[in-house]
């Protein structure tokens, strides 16, 4: 990294919460909506500078730079693979074996970090929220919004006391 960009990440909050999705594509909005709600909660309940909340349309290679200097990271996305309202897991760095598109899988993001920085990424937790509908211009479904509430409740507990299990569903 160039010194200037390095300086930009010299002072970072120890906790990063990164959620992604398109706010105007139905349940894909769950990631950004989570971030908006969680940011308000953390600002009201945590010391200034202790939590940074970021959102984007999708997970990308440059987000490996956002992991630098963190103590722990929560990654949040909508998921079409769940029966439960949400699922918590610990992603392990791995090559991007899935045929994704322009976006990275969380596991691949951690692998990019590892290859670029020749070290292990900070401890990351993946919070996947159940989703089903992705039409342009549609709001999230009622079920998705209910699942979001449960995921937020879990995340508030996570912020105060990190879980020790590798995988968790409600």
């Amino acid at each position, binding site marked *: 990294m160039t010194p200037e960009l390095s300086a930009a990440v010299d002072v970072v909050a120890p906790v990063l919460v990164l959620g992604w999705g*398109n706010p105007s594509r139905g349940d894909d909005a769950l990631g950004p909506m989570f971030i908006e709600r969680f940011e308000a909660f953390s600002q009201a309940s945590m010391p200034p500078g202790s939590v940074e909340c970021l959102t984007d349309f999708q997970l990308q290679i440059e987000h490996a730079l956002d992991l630098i200097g963190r103590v722990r990271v929560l990654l949040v996305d909508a998921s079409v693979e769940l029966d439960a309202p949400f699922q918590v897991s610990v992603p392990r760095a791995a090559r991007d074996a899935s045929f994704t598109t*322009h976006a990275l899988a969380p596991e691949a993001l951690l692998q990019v970090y590892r290859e670029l920085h020749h070290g292990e990424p900070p401890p990351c937790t993946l919070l996947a929220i159940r989703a089903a509908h992705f039409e342009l211009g549609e709001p999230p479904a009622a079920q998705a919004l209910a699942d979001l509430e449960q995921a937020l409740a879990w995340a508030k507990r996570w912020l105060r006391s990190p879980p020790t299990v590798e995988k968790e569903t409600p």
Partner: protein
Amino acid sequence: MSTSSLETASNPEGLRRIVIDPVSRVEGHGKVTILLDEMQRVQQVRLHIVEFRGFEKFIEGRPYWEVPVMVQRLCGICPVSHHLAASKALDRVVGAMPVTVSADKLRRLMHHGQIVQSHALHFFHLASPDLLFGLGAERDRRNIVGVAEAYPDTARQGILLRKFGQEIIRATSGKRVHGTGSVPGGMNRLVSAEDHAMLRAEVPQMLAWAQGAVDLVRRLHEQNPALYEGFASSPAPMMSLVGRDGAMELYDGVLRIRDANGAMLVDGVDDQRYRELIDEAVKPWTYMKFPYLRSMGAEAGWYRVGPLARLQNCDFIPTPRAEAQRRAFIDVHGGQVVHAALAFHWARMIEVLHGVEVIADLLDDPDILGGALMASGPRQAQGVGIIEAPRGTLIHDYTVGENDLVSRCNLIVATTHNNQAMNEAVRSVALQYLDGQTITEPLLNHIEVAIRAYDPCLSCATHALGRMPLAVTLRDAAGAVIDHVHRSSDGDTVRDRRPHAAEAP
């Protein structure tokens, strides 16, 4: 053999059907169908794009001042291009013609940041694995992680070039994503002194890396000219904006079209008159429209947009390093127009170099740090905004009622312009590589490489976990599924007999 004849087979009911869905590492949903006859020969090839719908419904009825922000949600890959194209169109509605000097330069800075970050992502993340490891390399290596392992400097430079472009966007639009900097009539923010100092300090390194990226793709081309000059070649007219002096112009200019041999067909057409040049055809087998040149008709009038068209449409590039690279590109090809898909990558990297040069010039310009930001004038009901987005010409066309609501809009995105060109490229590859033999992983990748060269944005920013498996369906002459292969989210290949839901019978 002409590839256009492969759009519709004469007797499709008697053919085997192979479906590849979706195309890996391409934005959104797309599938390729290939029909073989009883002799295993390619008879029909189509690229289906299933998600380009609903744009107009999404925008119509909204207040015009919301539109530059809302349209960013049409595409998670190039939101800034939509942001600026909508702003340009709506400048006319509010009578801001022209916008102020500072607003024009700030928008140009933002736009070239978008060009740099998008091209860097495409080349280093999507294309370089194919190019550095070869088109037949095993799947596990063909990704950014494989590049990071084998070529750590290349992967690192790609990420930091992209980061630099995104920092330019943040400094001009106000946010990393969902920026609000550009508005109808101008801009609402200047570049801060802090951002200015940080970005200027980065320029020398970014110029060096951009130059290195051009050199890399040029070396790859020179090592295997037969592949780079012949793979997925589909001669077509080329359309882009150019400056009034013929210069490469990515933000605001006049329309130019050259034929497949480089002869001038149309030049100097005002962007407000785009509908005099092109129309859009509908075909029953896809949701996506097929734009064509009115002067040549729906069948013969398809054309190409994007970096390869822009590079060969302009008379010169108005920045010295990129112009030297443009001349090298032309010299290597003996002055002949190039239509091969892999040449996109070389053109794309020349544009990255040009983009960084433009950014460097603008960062030295005091107008981005001070000056009037908004203009206004007599209100108009309509406005067209055309911009050269990373993937090609992007058209936003609005009508706004007296109640300030958008009553009509028409958007033509670069991937729609290139719809037929991508179909032709896939047909070219299918003819060369899929002659009735087993569909192997390297063969599949050849099709994907041809499509990826166009960097199509097939859908927009829906990336839920687990949403994008790769599936291949094989049907016999009677339409029954005889094989179905898909990838699980962890990369395993799963073979079953389940028909793919997206496939038309």
